[in-house]
């Protein structure tokens, strides 16, 4: 039932209404500027609202309630302590334009420390915290690359190279920045095909966008030759930080030869995913891209911290948000990083990698096919169900849906596109061995069901608030909003 359908006309939440204002006080607004029909919003009591949204929340799987091994999304525990740090009244009530000298030094100290932590973790020399999501970080990074080439009068670079295993945001971002995209194939072992790269790289190459470890769940072993080839052609290297959790505190994008990096704080730094945002996608750069960083930046001077805005940064690509990006998310990442500290950051990569390799080893011992059996798993890995599909007609989607019945969120399915019938599994470091064991047992049980009674899988899930949804109908006859009088 929709909240609108609880409406009882005349219901008002008097506790949420300020004192009434006489009509005469609106007399200065011309009649033709006024709204005639009230908006069709619900008219319900405060208790109804609480019950309705509490019930809705109970229809979600979440990290707080379920194992959530969604590959390439790093669904680790979001510490409550980080949430509390960001929800301090002084932080929540601060207006973005409150003067910084008198009313922002505490906030800016946190943001400045976060800048320093991210620089140390990546080895880069400049940082801007302002991008509001990974995709906006990508946009900032590619816009900086574009600005760099143009500032050198190098206007012929019109292509961006993207491996075929990359996240969809990579090619979409390159196009938003005015580039043509060239796909680079992956070799049999999951590394970038160097011969193919050499054939397409050239004076038209603006950059290559890479995720390392890649979305195939393996470390790109050729990263040094790739960097040499692209740099020799005058192109730059873009690092998509989606998988930084695998190498946090162990290896740095700067040392691999990357010129610009975006991080996903909602992945590696454990800020909440919130049902699809907000995220934060800070960008970090080396010296050559430093002048182009998006504004504002936080700097420390003898008399305190302050923002640096566009007039002081004439080569900046500019502003990406009305104010300063997702500050509340940055504060959560700051609190998380301060709790972990210098010794805790590498442990993230250690235990994320341990958990993934343990899970991969157990599944392999149970007879599941790893997509890259000769490779070490990173913080995630892929199993392929093509054999089960061929022999029993049971698909990766069937497994995903049946896993929900077993109380586990599904891994990422059908991505990367290179591996047929794949599950991309990322357990993260915050899960216990016991949870991983239960997940293995669930997959074995599902495989048995798929072989003996595949219909159980085809028709799964069976225990959730709804069963498999008609997505074709949703797209063919879009019903995107409630209207009064509709059902």
């Amino acid at each position, binding site marked *: 039932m929709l909240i609108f359908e609880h409406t009882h006309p005349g219901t008002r939440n008097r506790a949420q209404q300020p004192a009434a204002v006489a009509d005469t006080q609106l007399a200065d607004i011309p009649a033709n500027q006024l709204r005639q029909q009230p908006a069709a919003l619900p008219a319900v009591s405060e208790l109804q609202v609480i019950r309705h949204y509490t019930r809705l929340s109970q229809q979600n799987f979440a990290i707080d309630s379920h194992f959530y091994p969604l590959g390439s999304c790093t669904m680790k525990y979001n510490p409550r302590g980080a949430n509390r740090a960001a929800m301090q009244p002084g932080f929540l009530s601060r*207006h973005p334009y409150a003067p910084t000298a008198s009313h922002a030094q505490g906030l800016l100290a946190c943001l400045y420390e976060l800048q320093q932590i991210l620089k140390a973790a990546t080895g880069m020399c400049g940082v801007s915290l302002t991008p509001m999501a990974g995709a906006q970080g990508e946009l900032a990074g590619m816009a900086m690359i574009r600005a760099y080439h143009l500032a050198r009068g190098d206007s012929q670079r019109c292509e961006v190279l993207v491996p075929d295993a990359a996240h969809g945001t990579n090619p979409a971002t390159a196009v938003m920045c005015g580039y043509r995209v060239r796909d680079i194939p992956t070799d049999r072992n999951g590394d970038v095909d160097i011969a193919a790269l050499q054939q397409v790289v050239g004076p038209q190459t603006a950059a290559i966008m890479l995720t390392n470890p890649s979305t195939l769940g393996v470390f790109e072993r050729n990263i040094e030759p790739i960097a040499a080839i692209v740099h020799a052609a005058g192109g730059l290297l873009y690092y998509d930080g989606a998988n930084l959790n695998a190498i946090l505190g162990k*290896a740095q994008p700067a040392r691999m030869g990357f010129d610009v990096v975006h991080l996903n704080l909602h992945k590696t730094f454990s800020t909440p995913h919130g049902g699809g*945002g907000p995220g934060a996608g800070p960008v970090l750069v080396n010296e050559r891209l430093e002048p182009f960083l998006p504004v504002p930046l936080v700097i420390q001077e003898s008399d305190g911290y302050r923002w640096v805005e566009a007039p002081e940064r004439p080569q900046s690509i500019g502003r990406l948000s009305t104010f300063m990006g997702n500050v509340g998310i940055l504060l959560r990442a700051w609190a998380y990083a301060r709790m972990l500290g210098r010794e805790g950051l590498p442990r993230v990569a250690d235990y994320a990698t341990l958990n993934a390799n343990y899970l991969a080893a157990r599944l392999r011992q149970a007879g599941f096919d790893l997509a890259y059996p000769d490779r070490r798993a990173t913080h995630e890995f892929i199993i392929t169900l093509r054999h089960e599909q061929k022999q029993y007609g049971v698909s990766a989607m069937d497994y995903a849906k049946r896993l929900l019945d077993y109380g586990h969120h599904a891994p990422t399915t059908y991505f990367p596109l290179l591996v047929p019938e794949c599950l991309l599994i990322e357990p993260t470091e915050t899960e216990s061995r016991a949870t991983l064991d239960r997940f293995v047992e669930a997959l074995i049980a599902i495989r048995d069901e798929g072989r003996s009674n595949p219909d159980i899988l085809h028709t799964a899930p069976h225990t959730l608030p709804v069963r498999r949804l008609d997505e074709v109908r949703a797209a063919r006859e879009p019903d995107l909003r409630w209207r009064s009088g509709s059902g």
Partner: protein
Amino acid sequence: MPFIPHAADDVAAMLDTIGVASIEALFDEIPAPLQQCDLSAIEPGEPEMVVSRLAAERAAADGVPICFVGAGAYDHHIPAAVWDLVTRGEFYSAYTPYQAEASQGTLQLIYEFQSMIAALTALDVANASLYDGASALAEAVLMALRGNRSNRSRQVLLPRTLHPAYRATVATIVTPQQVELETIDYQRDSGTLDVAALAPYEANPPAALVVPQPNFFGQLEAVDQLTDWAHRHGVLLIAVVNPIALALLKPPGEWGEKGADIACGEGQPLGIPLASGGPYLGFISCREALLRQLPGRLVGRTVDRDGKPGFTLTLQAREQHIRRSRATSNICTNQGLLAAAATIYMALLGSDGLTAVARACHANRNALLTALTEIAQVEAPFSGAGFHEAVIRIGQPADQIIRSLAAQNLIGGYPLANDYPELGEDALLICATESRSAADISRYRDNLQRILERRGPACTRLRPADGL
């Protein structure tokens, strides 16, 4: 180890299962020269108790001043229920609802959000949210360029009465796609856009015209005339609106004869704390004809295999994870948790409550303007109606006065001189929402009067700079 549950015997057993001697051995595919990371610049870790205390101290140092600034972010009362519900772990720690059956809570909530935004703007469809107001406008501009069937112009008109940070953000995001952003000046007496100023663009009409309502100065634009001008010339009209104001003011879908084509704006006023500028909430809605040009996530209602109603992400063929380089935008994550806050806020207030808030904001804005202009040196340069905010001139450099007010724990407004030098160094944008009391307003007036008097009449009125 913070947040890592492994006991020593777990680690030993796991390594044994994998068949390696140590965790270090799991990194053996990383070339040796790359296995370095100097973290000495980072402090050692601290327990939650210590980090909590540091956060509390720093937040307290920033104070909780009385806020008379708006300029794109508004200090409204947020019902306690909003964030009690939003921070429930089931909302807070879920991800994008790819597995629809396990995400009906988030999906239904977004469907309700889309319904409420569409209703508030009086347009056909809204998406699941964008990052913030400024970036939502950038997406609206790109959408209009794709969706305008009357012309192939790459030009978009942005009035100077639009928030300066919105203009800057749009420029950053759309410039790489060969878009020409043309700035339109405003009338000095009203602080609004003049339809006559658009005449030069009639010969070669642009793809879109952006109209903010209320505008950055808090003034009301002639939205009907501007919309009709746009449609007469095959131009799409993009409305940038404040969602609280929409409870009182004519919604974009009803502007002029045909209504605006796209509406977007900042959803922060709907139950989202000021929080130094984010995370906020971009919203966007449009007419049905532009549906396939909408960027970002969309939730649709459908049925499951038993015919029971349910919700799912839909029309994903527009999006980057399906279409890759041919997507409508690179956007992936949106602002799901903030959309939840806005939905719960709107459900709690309803149309009556939202209207009551808007009326109280308007009354307070007028009361503030009246109180401050009682001071001899203070005057209001613009005539005509406004909402939320107003421009005043105070006879002294606004940035200095702001600092003096801050020492009294008052955030006095937004100095306009950097963005609008023609208004004078003493021009200040002020705001009062429903949460300012009569005592707050008196306190502001008394302090401002005292500060201006102390600085004395010696400082003559500043002259506006010539031109722009």
